[in-house]
């Protein structure tokens, strides 16, 4: 049937017309907008159909606690990866003071170490003229995002990733990060092209984080960018790291296993590379927090950033103590207890306030 012969009901039941009203398909939107202008005689039926569909679409999302989903997901993980027998579990954490003392709680920890990664967002209708696509996580939440080119990003807690809603061929792939994320970027350049420094801009993938630009072709790396500090750690491949400054551009090339940290407090300091174990910096993607002679002050900052906590140390000298080891990160109470036990202090928690006494 020709659209010009449509009754109100015909418009209502037409899937392309529905996509136009719900703005879920830009092409349908363009088509029906133009069609309406060309067929003024049909305006009555057209407008009525729009009004009926808008009524049906004016739906309120049903609130549901995030906790239900997480509980159910944890249950699913337990059946997919049954806990390993904890018979000879090594302590998950040890302090600098007493590195070898075995602790019973560690067994419980090892047993409950379950990988927890947040998934892609709920399905939703894409808005046709959205300025940015934005993915964000809440405190304590992880989320996996698949980008338009098939690259994968795991967002750590309290982080946000922003990008253009569509990536045009022939343009660099660009994202903006606040917080922490692990990137697994698809190589879209011809196979022979491996050197990022000499590659044309249209095959590069660029992460803008703080004052740094991280340009790659196809690699895996971790970027951390919070309150004045930006840290990049490369797992595989190559990174071309640029520091934007008024009047100058500083660039370094990273090889696998190298780390660069930039601190806004020292903006003139040159970018210095050091060699690290990259797995240590990406362990959070597997539901682990790793400490390697890490000071309690740093651990407190990390917990505050990732879980939205406010932590008070009863004894300020505690801040200088150091911890080594790994704990599961998905269960905050288990995590806090593990830290408390290895420091030999009592942990109290009320909502997002935590005290180490």
């Amino acid at each position, binding site marked *: 049937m020709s659209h010009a012969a449509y009754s109100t009901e015909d418009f209502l039941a037409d899937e392309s017309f529905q996509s136009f009203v719900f703005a879920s398909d830009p092409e349908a939107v363009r088509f029906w907008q133009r069609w309406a202008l060309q067929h003024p005689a049909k305006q009555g039926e057209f407008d009525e159909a729009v009004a009926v569909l808008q*009524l049906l679409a004016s739906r309120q999302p049903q609130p549901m606690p995030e906790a239900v989903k997480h509980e159910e997901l944890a249950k699913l993980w337990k059946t997919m*990866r049954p806990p390993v027998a904890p018979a000879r579990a090594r302590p998950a954490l040890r302090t600098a003071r007493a590195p070898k003392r075995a602790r019973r709680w560690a067994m419980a920890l090892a047993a409950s170490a379950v990988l927890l990664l947040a998934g892609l967002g709920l399905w939703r209708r894409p808005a046709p003229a959205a300025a940015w696509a934005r993915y964000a996580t809440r405190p304590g939440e992880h989320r996996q995002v698949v980008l338009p080119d098939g690259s994968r990003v795991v967002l750590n807690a309290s982080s946000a990733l922003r990008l253009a809603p569509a990536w045009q061929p022939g343009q660099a792939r660009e994202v903006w990060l606040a917080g922490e994320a692990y990137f697994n970027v698809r190589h879209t350049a011809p196979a022979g092209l491996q050197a990022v420094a000499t590659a044309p801009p249209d095959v590069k993938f660029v992460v803008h984080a703080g004052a740094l630009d991280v340009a790659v072709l196809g690699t895996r790396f971790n970027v951390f960018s919070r309150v004045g500090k930006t840290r990049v750690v490369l797992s595989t491949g190559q990174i071309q790291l640029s520091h934007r400054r008024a009047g100058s551009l500083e660039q370094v090339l990273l090889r696998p296993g190298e780390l660069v940290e930039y601190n806004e407090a020292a903006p003139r300091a040159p970018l210095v590379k050091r060699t690290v174990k990259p797995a240590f910096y990406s362990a959070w993607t597997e539901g682990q927090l790793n400490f390697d002679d890490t000071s309690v002050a740093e651990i407190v900052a990390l917990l505050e950033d990732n879980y939205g906590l406010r932590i008070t140390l009863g004894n300020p000298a505690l801040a200088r103590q150091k911890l080594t080891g790994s704990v599961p990160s998905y269960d905050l109470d288990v995590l806090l207890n593990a830290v408390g036990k290895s420091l030999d202090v009592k942990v109290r928690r009320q909502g997002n306030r935590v005290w180490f006494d």
Partner: protein
Amino acid sequence: MTEENSAQLWESFRLGNAQALATLFEAYYYALFNYGRKLTGDEELVKDCIQNLFQKLWRRRGGVRPTPVVKAYLFKALRRHLGDETKLLRQHRHLLPAHTDSFEVTYSHEEFLIAQQRDAEQSTRLLAALNRLSKRQREALYLKFFDGFTYERIAEVMSLNTQSVRNLVFNALKAIRKVMLVSLALVITLCT
């Protein structure tokens, strides 16, 4: 999540990647939960059925079919699980007549945000119209407007053919339009 993304995750899951299945679980959990709740009204039963469905998928991953439309596949599977479970419950408890095995979708006020001034009256009218539809019409409308499925996917979920779904939705919208005619005419004259 796009159909293409979820189809990739599905393939990866079939090859034994637990993370891929967990990601699908995360992506579709609320949509499945809300659909199940619409069908049965029993939240605990819905939670259990979704959990069983995914655990079963994982156990039988070797024999699971490939599918290009994961969301519709999951909806259909949940629908079948819920049907089996409610049938069992009824047999055990003799609470309800055995032949009422089709689902009852009902709509409530909280689901609609109507921005117009006479919203209370309009939404009451709309709800009355929706709840007077046949069960199948209500379910098809839910899948169409709340979950954004195409006629083809709805047909798959409800095990009908596409033309029947089109007719269900067409007749449902026709009935709603008739009921809403008065108040809508008013809205349109006010707007133009």
